[in-house]
Each structure stands twice: as C-alpha cells, then as structure tokens.
C-alpha cells in the first residue's frame, strides 16, 4: 500500500489533489482511498488530505501517520506545522517552492532521506503560467508522477479531465505535464551529479 499525505492551506485545492490522485490510481485499475483531515476548513487555514493506493481493497481508514509520500503545497507551513511527522527514510517528498532545500532551511534535514526522492518544484508558478491561477495541486501531482514513477502522468491527466473541463482542464493538464518534465530533468541532473 502506498500512503500519501498532502499538506496545504484551505483554498489551494489540497482535498482535490488527493481526490485526483485517487482517480488516477483508479484509472490504472488500482484501489484508492482519498479523504481530508476534516478540520474546520476555511481559506488559509492549514489543511491535510490523505490518499492510499493499493492493488487490493483498502480497509483501514485512520489518518496517515507514516506516509510514504509527502506533498507540501504551501512552504509557509514548513516551520509552522509538523508536516514531516512520520515520513520514513525511504519516503518521497515534494515541496511546492521555487527555492531549494537549503534556502528553505531544510538542507540538513534532507540528508536523512534518499536524496533522489526529495524535490522542490515551483508548482504555483507553473500553475500561474499554464492555468492563470496559482493552484499548485495538479502540477504537484504531475511532479509526483515524475519523481516516483508510482503513478503515470497520463493517468494524472485523465483524472484531471474527468473532474474538470474546457480551459480549466487544459490548463491543469498542461501545468501537470510541465511539472512532470521539469522533475524528470531535475532528477537526471541529481543522479548524474
């Protein structure tokens, strides 16, 4: 089972991201479960959502305390909320920011993990560019596809088109694919360095 936890703020589409990821997994014929942390959500408040993916029926429903994948949609949460709680040594980490880990003050922190599984990606900027609004969810999913290979970018794109239509779908898909490509590039540089 793959357990993904997404952190962000209300209004950034954190819940939608988890849902889209679950739909993408469904498209690939897998079982998936997505749910929010059910806080008193309001715009700007910290929000958490969860997604489990497995090849068999998923029965448990507790919040994800030991995520395999951590996606942080808003870097201002990094030193406010314990976003990293439970992330295993082999975990994946994707942070929405145009800065690097060192600039974020996480230079030492990322040493504990497998370096090729941790990346930053400027998802809000990509969203602004392709969608016209800084909604980082879709590009982060695209980035996750690129980072881990655990979900295909085509499934992510199909999930986006399942939920959205017209220009909104186009923009989100474009942003997701752009993030995917960017992440693949970064990984190449990382592993060749």
């Amino acid at each position: 089972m793959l357990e993904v936890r997404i952190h962000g703020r209300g209004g950034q589409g954190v819940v939608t991201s988890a849902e889209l990821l679950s739909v993408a997994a469904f498209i690939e014929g897998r079982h998936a479960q997505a749910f929010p942390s059910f806080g008193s959500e309001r715009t700007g408040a910290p929000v958490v959502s969860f997604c489990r993916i497995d090849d068999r029926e998923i029965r448990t429903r507790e919040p994800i305390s030991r995520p395999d994948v951590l996606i942080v949609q808003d870097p201002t949460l990094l030193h406010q909320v314990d976003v990293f709680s439970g992330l295993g040594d082999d975990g994946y980490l994707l942070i929405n920011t145009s800065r690097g880990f060192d600039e974020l003050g996480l230079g030492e922190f990322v040493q504990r993990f497998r370096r090729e599984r941790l990346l930053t990606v400027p998802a809000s900027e990509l969203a602004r560019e392709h969608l016209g609004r800084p909604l980082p969810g879709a590009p982060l999913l695209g980035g996750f596809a690129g980072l881990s290979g655990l979900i295909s970018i085509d499934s992510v794109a199909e999930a986006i088109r399942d939920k959205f239509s017209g220009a909104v779908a186009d923009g989100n898909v474009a942003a997701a694919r752009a993030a995917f490509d960017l992440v693949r590039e970064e990984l190449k540089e990382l592993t060749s360095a």
Partner: protein
Amino acid sequence: MLRQMEGSAAVAETVALCRPEVIAAYPISPQTHIVEGLSALVKTGRLSPCEFINVESEFAAMSVSIGASATGARTYTATASQGLLYMVEALYNASGLGLPIVMTVANRAIGAPINIWNDHSDAMSQRDSGWIQLFAETNQEALDLHVQAFRIAEELSVPVMVCMDGFILTHAYERVELPTQEQVDAFLPPYEPRQVLDPDEPVTIGAMVGPEAFTEVKYLAHAKQMQALDLIPQVAEDFTRAFGRESGGLVRGYRIEDAETVVVALGSVLGTIEDTIDELRDEGMSIGALSIKTFRPWPLDEVREALANARRVVVLEKALAVGIGGIVSLNVRIATQGHPAHVHTVIAGLGGRPITMASLRGLLSEDDLPLVTFLDLDRDLVQRELDRTRERRRSGPHAENMLRDLGTVASGPV
C-alpha cells in the same frame, strides 16, 4: 458501473435510482453533499418525477416527509446529529404512524460541545424511536443499503435510517459499483402504500389513542421490527442475487469462528479493525471481529451465536451513554447472557477522534481490560480540569478551559 467517487455523491446517485417522489432537504454537515447532489439531479430532470423541497428545518424535513409518505409518495430525506435531534418528535410520529420513509443519517457527534465530526451518538440517541437502523461499513455498502432500505421500509411500513459515518465515508473518495436503473427497478417495485390519504377512500390517520388500545398499537410496532429480523437477511440475499455482491444483513463475522477475542463494532471502523486483526493473527493472537449491520432491531440470536465461543468480547463503540457507559455493550450483554465471555466496553472515536491501528493493537494486547475504557483518553487533561473545578466555584466552561490548556488548536497531521 465502477466509479471512483465521493461517498455522498454515490449515495445521491443511488437514491435517485430508487425513484423517490418527494425529497425534503435541509442541509447539515456532513450530509450536505448528498442533498446537493440530489437537488442537481432533480433540477436537471435526471430524477423525474420528483419534488425536491428545500425546507426550513430538520423538523420540517421529517414533517414534510410524513405528509408526502402518507399521501403515497416514496419519500426520502437526510440529516445528522443536531438535525436528527431537532426532528425527534417527528421521528417517533413517522414510526408510530407506520410511514416507510427512508433517511440517511451521516453519523456525527451531538453537542454541546458543538462538533461536526463523526461518531454514533446521533443514531444511538434514536435507537428507541421505532426506526430500523442499518449501518454501512463502506461507501459501497452505504449506497447498497439505500436500495435495500426502501424495500424493507415499504414491505413492513416502517421507516428506515441508513447510517454512514460522517466525513469518514461521506467525504471519502473510493471505488464503488453504481447500480443501473434497470437493476434497481427490478429490485424495487413502485411504492404501494398500506395506508394512503385518498378522497376516494377517506381515512382518518393520527387520531388520539387512549389507554384501551395504545399498548396494542405499540406492540404492533415492536412486532414489525421483529419481522424485520427475518426480512432484512432475506432482502440482503435477494440483493446479492440481483447485484452480485454481499451487502447489508444483520451481522457479519470476520475471522470469528475460532476467535477467543471478538471485537464488536459498527460502521467504517471495521476496516481498520480488520487490518489490525490480520496483524495480530499473524502474531499468534486468536482474534476476530463482529460487524453489527442492523442495530435496530437488535439481532439478538445472531449476536449470541456469533459470540458463543468467545472468551473476551471487546465492544468498540463510538457513542457514550453518559452516566452508565456503553450503549452497544448493553445490547451485546443481553445477547451474551449465560455465556462465560467477559464483555468489555471501549469508548472510542468520539467527536471524530481517529481510531488508529496502533491504539487498537495496544488495547487488544492488554491482558486486563477494565469494564469500561476510553481509548486514547488524555487523563492529564481531564485531571487538570477536575482539579480546577474543585478549587474554584466559577471554574469556567470545561471545553474552553481545556482548549486553552492545549494551546493553539493543533494543526498537525494527526
């Protein structure tokens, strides 16, 4: 059709397939997406003919349902928590009048303190209302139970509430198989009322009944619920034949046959319990689970039989009978009378507190469980509050004091 979708949306789609003729809707978290979905289905004409009425309160929702059902319309509404309480007078009225209304209850805690998250206190508070109470473990079962509910209700002329855990199921995206209209139509014939307001055959419904006949009327309500104990498994069987999957029924055992310890629970927590049981079994513990799918009527014989060989019964309940302890446990104890098994009550998940595998493991690994336990209770916090009330007369409101104690509201992941 296999879909990945939100529980509420799946329920709305399925209820629509049941061809309700009148839907009374008043919004309350966490049921809102259900009535929103249905409103769109009616408005776009996908569900037709159907009158969708935005009412002014939950009391009105059940009252409108009573009028509609008595006039022969298949009637549906949904609520939770405070809303369920607000309509209590009408709940008893509906069951007393024998009206086959179907209602979704998106289980949520009851205030004060106000709390929008899941537990079973709402449904449990109405266990004596004369409504049949069905509990869904998954979103698949939630939508399946609605199809079964209309049939059970209309056959017996008893109202049915389908309980699904608020947020945990209503707001979860998961894989579901939506039935087709043809399947539902074949399973659910048009509503043929046993009593109806009709100028061609006028009847008086709802007269005052005095001491000379009230007992008999109430006995009939009880007798019909007892009939439900036979009808519910029958309908579940028919459902399996028609739709190709198991859903509903009275109880379901999981790895229970030789289990020394049996965990009894209702609703979505069974999933987490089963994963925990698999782990504990691998470690050598003799343990199983019993899912109560129908809480009212209480499946006494089925529970007794299921727990016949257990040495330790752990009833995990998401509700609390203040002043005494467990609610489901009391019902279980009736079933295990004469058994050697010890029945332990574990109050868990109140107000939406997550029930984790780690906590369950810890709990079930304990040798000496007390009679009543509150899972994951912060004893220091309550002790501080009790001390505070002892020291000062004007000690202030409990909840607000404790929030202050906890500091800013936790915004962490768990």
